[in-house]
């Protein structure tokens, strides 16, 4: 348990999506016209308003002490941001659909005889194609946000953890091989089966392994270790020979929207989702890294999920 008298930094993070939309208004205005810019401004406004409401509801009363478990804090943060982003994503989807439809209608009109032979037509067609492409890109993002927010109750079954990891390792191995990255297995031979949610664990493993390969980039290794941890748990360690995680990033890597990838390459939701899943299964995921020695992610899972329920 940690005493957190104030956590002002955490009040800033939720506003990031709104700020991003706000920032997008300027280039949108320049490139696509004032109407787009106004739209973006309106969205940013909606986002901030929703958020204020949400955060106010969570505001502690005066004089109330905040004694929070790190995991609980993380879970609440994820839940709040999940709700907000789902709301915003949903709101954005409708205008997006209209924009796309109108652009397509304009494409159809441009094909009529009326416009035949006009030299600007080709340029207009290009612009419309670009608009539709960008709408589709935005739709992909909103879909991701909606997926992120959807809560899934774990379904518990017997899981042979080594087999599950091997399946996911093979999937990643194809891509890794092309980059001369070896996947090294160090599986404990007699690992007890665990009682957990297989598909959700696959999602976690695939994310972690994919991140590890991404971190190495080229020529290196990703080592997967499984081992029993006491009588009640198993541990999965994924170590990569990449550059490691900067000390200032380490405390934030499980935060939603935190990403070190270049813009457009990651939503910053992957690790946050993994964190949520593992916690819900009664486990714990941690990251460790030392400069120049790569990074290690450790996933600790109870033999029986649901024995403890953090962040309820």
């Amino acid at each position, binding site marked *: 348990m940690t005493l957190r008298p104030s956590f002002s930094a955490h009040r800033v993070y939720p506003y990031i999506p709104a700020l991003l939309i706000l920032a997008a208004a300027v280039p949108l205005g320049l490139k696509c016209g004032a109407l787009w810019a106004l739209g973006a401004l309106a969205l940013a406004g909606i986002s901030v308003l929703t958020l204020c409401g949400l955060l106010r509801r969570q505001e502690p009363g005066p004089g109330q002490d905040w004694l929070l478990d790190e995991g609980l804090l993380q879970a609440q943060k994820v839940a709040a941001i999940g709700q907000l982003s789902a709301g915003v994503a949903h709101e954005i989807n409708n205008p997006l659909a209209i924009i796309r439809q109108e652009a397509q209608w304009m494409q159809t009109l441009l094909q009529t005889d009326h416009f035949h032979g006009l030299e600007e037509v080709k340029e207009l067609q290009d612009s419309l194609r670009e608009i539709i492409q960008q709408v589709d890109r935005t739709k992909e993002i909103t879909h991701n946000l909606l997926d992120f927010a959807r809560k*899934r109750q774990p379904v518990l*079954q017997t899981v042979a953890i080594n087999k599950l990891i091997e399946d996911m390792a093979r999937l990643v191995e194809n*891509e890794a091989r092309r980059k001369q990255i070896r996947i090294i297995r160090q599986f404990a031979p007699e690992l007890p089966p665990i009682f957990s949610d*297989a*598909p959700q664990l696959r999602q976690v493993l*695939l994310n972690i392994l*994919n991140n590890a390969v991404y971190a190495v980039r080229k020529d290196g290794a990703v080592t997967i270790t499984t081992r029993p941890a006491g009588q009640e748990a198993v541990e999965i360690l994924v170590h990569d020979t990449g550059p490691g995680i900067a000390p200032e990033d380490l405390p934030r890597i499980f935060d939603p929207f935190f990403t070190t990838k270049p813009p457009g390459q990651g939503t910053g939701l992957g690790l946050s989702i993994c964190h949520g899943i593992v916690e819900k299964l009664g486990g714990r995921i941690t990251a460790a890294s030392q400069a120049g020695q790569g990074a290690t992610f450790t996933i600790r899972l109870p033999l029986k999920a649901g024995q403890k329920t953090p962040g309820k």
Partner: protein
Amino acid sequence: MDNFKVMVVDDEQDFLETIIKRLKARKIEVAGAESGQRALDLLASQDFDVMILDVKMPGMDGIETLREVKKRKPLTEVIMLTGHASVESGIQGMQLGAFDYVMKPVALDELLEKMRQAYERKLIQEGKG
């Protein structure tokens, strides 16, 4: 005895016919669909326990089909099958609620085992609901 109902979705006719034949030989009730749209049509008229879904298909691809299936019949368990392992679409598939993401070729016995586990999961969820 496996008494679950399976739909296999794949645009490759040869693959589809063979896997249906082999599953029927194992006494499994199975139907085939050669496109995502066809799969959704079939799903509208009857329920399936497990769906084997190819990732790469012309028109509506596997991911898009999965998204629709999970919207319309969320309890249907979907095992994604892929020819070219793409980690990106694997993550997307799992995130959308697929049961598993399996690379082709896969031994029928292994696929059957996964189908049994997927069906078990469906039974557990139905018991809950």
